[in-house]
Structures are given as C-alpha cells and as structure tokens.
C-alpha cells in the first residue's frame, strides 16, 4: 500500500505546476477572466498542446485514458494556480458524456477537435427549479417522425456562452423528478431555435440560460439509449465531482499557504501577527482541514468502482464544502482589510471555492446523501 504518484502522474503534476509558474500569474488570470468568454483561447490552445484536454478521455475515444488519480493530479494544480478555463464543462462533462455515450462516428467527429482545443462544449442539465436534483427535468424532447423536437429552458449552463456544442438532458418520458425517461442529445449551440442569455458567475466564468424553441434533433444525436440518460449523467457527474474536489483542495492549500506567508510578514503591536497564539491555532485548524480533505480525496480515488464509492464521494463533497468555507473565511479574516479587497488574490480564490460548493450539490446536500446511506430512512 502507498499513496505515491506514478511516474506519469508526477510528470503531469510538474508540467502543470511549471505552466502556472511560468505563464499563469495572478495578473494574467485577472486579464483572462475579463475577456468576453471569461477565459483565454490561447491558454486553451496551450492546454491542448500540453495534452491536458485528453487526460480523462478514453483511448478508444482518442484520449489518454487517464483514471481518477490522473484527473486529480491535474485539477489540484489547476486549483492552486486558480486557472480560469472551461476544463470542467468542455472536457469533464461534455467530453466524457460524448466519450461514453456517442455512437462511434459522432464520437470521433467531436472528440478529435475537442482534444485539439478547437471545440468548446457544455452540458445543459439543470433548470431554474432543479436546485441540486439532477433528475428534476421539465425540458421535453417529443418524438416527431424519425427525430425529436426540443422545448424548454436550461439554467446556469457552465461555458454555455462559448460552447459550440451542447449535451442537453431532456425528458422523453416520465414525470418531472423521475430518473427514468431522461435522454441526452448533442446539439449545435448555434442552431436556430436555441436562445442564450449569458451572465457571469463570481469566479469570473460565464454561464448561460439556454432556451430551446421547437428545436429539431435527429436520432443520431442521441447519447446512449433513449430514456436511459440518467445513468450516464450519474457516471460523469461523479467523476466531475471528484475533479472539482481536487481543484478545491488545491485552492484550500494555496489559501492556507498564502495566509501563513501574509501573517509572517504583517506586523502589528511590534510583532508579526503570526506570533499571536490565537492566530496560530486558527492556521493549524486550516492546515488540518486541508489534510483531512486530502485523506478523503485519496480515499475516494481509491474507492472508484468499489462498494465504498458513493459513500466516499458524498463524504468528500460534504467535507470539501464545509472545510472549504472555513478555510476561505479564515483566509479573509486573517488578512484583515486586505482580505476584503479585489486587488489581492485571496478573495478570488475564495470565490472560486464558493462556486465549486454550488456545483452538483453543496455541503448540506451531500451531508444528507451520506446520512441516507448510513442511516437510511
């Protein structure tokens, strides 16, 4: 038993860290998020060159065929660097759904340009009323002739503004909250009948509400079997949650580090504020929160495919949400007034952490999911 990285993983980690160190300062990031799409296409091209866009895509899909640990390594580093990119929506969500669900021809026609950095994707799953319930879908795909007609609205679609293609979760049968009867379709995001309203999230990234008005789709745009989309969603969401938790851990560690550095440099009452015991204890708490989160992350990675997988994943997202909030709040508090400014990186890390908490269920949501496994009602 060991928790070491493989040689390849160590290389991936080093190359990501090097990229951030040499090309992705906080100033660059601040410029990038102000771009109309919330990220820089040139940076994205670099991602492609470095091979990062293929990491979780299967070998059959033309990718690297990486496992959960590979994704974890990459995402943790991207978190440390606060890298603004559509990696989650384009690769982890759209890419993986296509990878596991699309017929061969469609799969290759989408994943090749995706891995080359030339295609942006998004996954339109939630709706205004859904909150964290992935099955709460009213958007309807009605059979018409050989194909379907899509009507409804999706909300908070990450990367919805820049995406060329979307995977849309729509109901082909069943009632609003049923897991059965959900189907996934790949559509052209710029087709007539697709209306977008874009807006920013607090991490600088763009999301969009996307409305479908009598949009015709054909059967060969279907991912997986009709009505069976939920199982694909669950699978992809689980690996995405793990990736997001790794990113969050990178952020938490970074916040803990910069807080320690700041308090060592900041003097009040004639001494570095890091010398005040009450602040030392708080930083020890931050450190322990990171370490416990890391342990749970490793446990979750090791449990993929075992009977402990769901329980670990819920515990992880719960702990990352709760500990992430604590670490974020403490980082701001220990920076004093500096923590409240937008000129310092602290607040920006905290905001990304807060967005991650709202993706695919927050701490409270996963706490209850965990309890439902151990204490079923």
């Amino acid at each position, binding site marked *: 038993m060991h928790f070491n990285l493989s040689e390849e993983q160590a290389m991936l980690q080093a190359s990501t860290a090097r990229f951030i160190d040499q090309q992705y300062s906080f100033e660059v990031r601040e410029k990038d998020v102000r771009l109309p799409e919330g990220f820089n296409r040139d940076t994205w091209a670099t991602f492609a060159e470095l091979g990062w866009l293929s990491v979780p895509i299967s070998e059959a899909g033309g990718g690297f065929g990486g496992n959960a640990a590979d994704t974890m390594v990459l995402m943790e580093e991207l978190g440390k660097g606060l890298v603004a990119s559509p990696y989650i929506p384009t690769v982890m969500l759209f890419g993986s759904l296509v990878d596991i669900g699309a017929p061969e021809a469609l799969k290759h026609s989408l994943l090749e340009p995706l891995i080359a950095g030339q295609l942006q994707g998004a996954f339109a799953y*939630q709706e*205004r*009323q*859904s*909150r*964290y*319930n992935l099955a*709460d879908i009213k958007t309807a795909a009605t059979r018409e002739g050989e194909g379907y007609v899509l009507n409804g609205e999706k*909300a*908070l679609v990450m990367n919805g503004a820049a995406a060329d293609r979307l995977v849309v979760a729509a109901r082909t049968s069943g009632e*609003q*909250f049923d897991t059965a009867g959900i189907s996934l379709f790949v559509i052209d995001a710029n087709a007539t009948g697709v209306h977008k*309203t*874009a*807006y*920013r*999230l*607090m*991490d600088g990234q763009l*999301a969009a*509400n996307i409305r479908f008005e009598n949009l015709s789709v054909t059967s060969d745009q279907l991912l997986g079997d009709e009505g069976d989309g939920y199982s694909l969603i669950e699978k992809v969401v689980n690996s995405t949650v793990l990736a997001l938790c790794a990113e969050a851990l990178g952020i938490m560690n970074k916040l803990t580090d910069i807080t320690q550095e700041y308090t060592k440099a900041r*003097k*009040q*009452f*004639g001494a570095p*504020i890091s010398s*005040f015991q*009450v*602040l030392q204890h708080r930083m020890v708490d931050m450190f322990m929160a990171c370490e416990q989160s890391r342990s749970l992350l490793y446990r979750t990675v090791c449990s993929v495919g075992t009977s402990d997988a769901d329980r670990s994943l819920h515990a992880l997202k719960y702990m990352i949400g709760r500990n992430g*909030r604590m670490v974020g*709040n403490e980082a*701001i*508090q220990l920076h*004093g*007034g500096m*923590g*409240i*400014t*937008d*000129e310092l990186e602290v*607040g920006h890390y*905290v*905001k990304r952490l*807060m*967005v991650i*908490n*709202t*993706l695919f269920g*927050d*701490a*409270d949501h996963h*706490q*209850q999911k965990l309890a439902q496994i151990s204490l079923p009602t």
Partner: protein
Amino acid sequence: MDISFSDEEVAFRDQVRDFFKQAPVAEVTALIAQPDTYKEGTVRWQKHLFAQGWIAPTWPIEHGGAGWTPTQMHIFETERVAASAPDVLPFGLKMVGPVIYTYGTEQQKQRFLPRILASDDWWCQGYSEPGAGSDLASLKTRAELDGDHYVVNGSKTWTTGAHHADWIFCLVRTSTEGRPQQGISFLLIDMTSPGVTVRPIPTINGEHSLNEVFFDNVRVPVENRIGDENKGWTYAKSLLAHERTVIARVADSKRRLEKLRQYALKETEGGQVMAQDPVFRSRFSDIEAELMALEYTGLRVLAAQASGQGPGAESSLLKIKGTEVQQAIHELTIDLAGPYGGIINDSLTSGDIGHEFGDQARKDYMYGRATTIYGGSNEIQKNITAKHVLGL
C-alpha cells in the same frame, strides 16, 4: 424583570410606525441601491428624518438631538427595520458628532453640528493606515505645527465613503514622545484642501466603498483640532464603544432572518420546500436562538445605559455575537440560493436569469466578511473582553 412598554411608549411606537408608513422608503431605497444615485438617496432620506426632528435621536436636545431614552431608541430601531427603512450613515451622526458636542469648542459646535444634522456635510473616518490597523495607536500620519496651521503628511486606508466625503475626521501623530497613544491628536480636515487625494479600493463584492486617502503637505487650521493636542486617543476611544454597539445590528439581523424564512418557504428541491429540509432547519434554528438571546443582550446594555452606565466592555460582546450572527445569516442565505449563490446580475444581462436573491446573497456574503474585521476585529474584541471583562 419587565419589558412591557408604558402608555407613553406605546403612543410613541404608534407615532413612529405611522411616520415610517408615510415616509418615501421605497423611493430612497431604490436610489441607494444604485451606485450613481447612492449619495443622493442617502442624503434625501437623512434630510427627511431631519425634517421630522429624528435624525439624531440620542443627541442631547440642546445640540439638536431628540434626547430619546434608550427604550425609545429601541422602539425606533425596531420600527425602522420592520419598515425596511435605511439606516443613517454613522460617520457624522454617530461618530464625529458626539465627539464634537462632548469635546469641541463652542465655535466648533456651531460650525459643524447643524451641518451634520442637516446632512449638508458628508463625513468619513480616517483612523486606519496601511501600517496601523488593529494596532491603531501605531499610526504615523504626521501633523506638524506651522504657525496657526498643522501641516499633515501621510495616508489613511480603508476609508469608507471618502470619495463622497466633504470632511474627514482623522487621528494624526503630533508627538513621538511617551506611549504611542499619548502623541495622537484629533483633526477635522476639509477634503477639498489642496494636497488631499483619494484612490478607490475595489472590494470583493465588486463594489466601490473603500478608499485610500493621501495627505501631501495639507494645511489644516489649528482651530480644526478637537480638544487638546495629544489627547485625541481618549476622544476617539470614547467613541469606539458606540461604534461597536452600532455594528451589532440586531434589528437588522432579525429582518434578514425573517426574509430568509420567507425565501425558504418558496425555494424548493425535489418538489419539497427548503423550510422542510432537516439541515436547513437545524442551521436556521441555531441562528434564531442566538439572535433571540442577542436581542436581550442588547436590551440589557440599553437598560444599563439608561441607568447612566455608558456602553463599556460589554459592547465587545455585542459586536462579536452580532457580527457572527450576521455572517451566519449571510451563509445560510447564499446556501439557500443553491446553484444561484454564485451569480452576478450586472450589466452583462438585464434579463431575468431565474433567481430572486442569489445576486444579493453573494454581495452580502462577501462584504459581510468585513463585519468581523472592522470596528476592531473580533480577535481584538476577544482580547479586550479577556482583559477588561474577565480580568485575565
């Protein structure tokens, strides 16, 4: 052990309630909510209170206040919050005003107090400096005597509203001898004086309220000094306790919690309202119990004040708990907004993006982190409580 109101107090409450019912609350709130009309709305609201004679309820009547009892003050606050009416800005009315009428000369009182009451001058507070935050007494901005003027050099930071201000009240160093507290003076500085510049500091909620203020050979008439030279610390300290009771904002938290309760009756997941969600219920009632207690802590402080004891060390307790409750409400509100807790509803989209309070919850959460930092951070309040209340 009796908190019932006397007949006069009941009559007073009805009068206040009636006043708020007829006041232009919605209008000024809308103005205050927009950055470009924020100042206009604030001044309009304060002038409305001034016209009623209620702009400075706790000031002594001789200085233009209403001379209310703490109970009347409590009634007013409760009614104000129930009517969702804006609070007044503290800097002139709750901070420098009381210092001027307590320690100022007759001439200073006549010159400044009427304009503070009428909101003709906008004041800001120039205490903190880049090197002097929690350790305020280490401040370095210098004021050197040159004939009948002080020449001021240095900078202040985190100055709320300096970009709107006509005047700033400052703590400045006039002596480097003895303990640092002994060389500080209290100066009133005209913001239009040559040599004063203001730089905005953007905050994490994306808005502009904070600034840096630079003083480059700014000439300030000696007559703008409050009280004696090198005694400024004593004057400022007497005011800090007031600032802390203000920051507790108990009535405001009650309103926010009630709002949160209403949101929770509408927000759903899986067809069930969040008010029925066990984790939500547990977190909500945690806050509720703290706030119910805090309301009475506030009343106990008021009662002590009524019997002639000024707010002392117990104001620290109010500040700590008050801000903790505020932050807990912010956290639960943004969590209730769920996936909408991260949205920014700005000029990029004017359309309806699907949520009533997510954008505001985000702003409140982010800016609300400051409540445990300003007015003396909560760590400093605990130090004070340990030393002066517990005698440790």
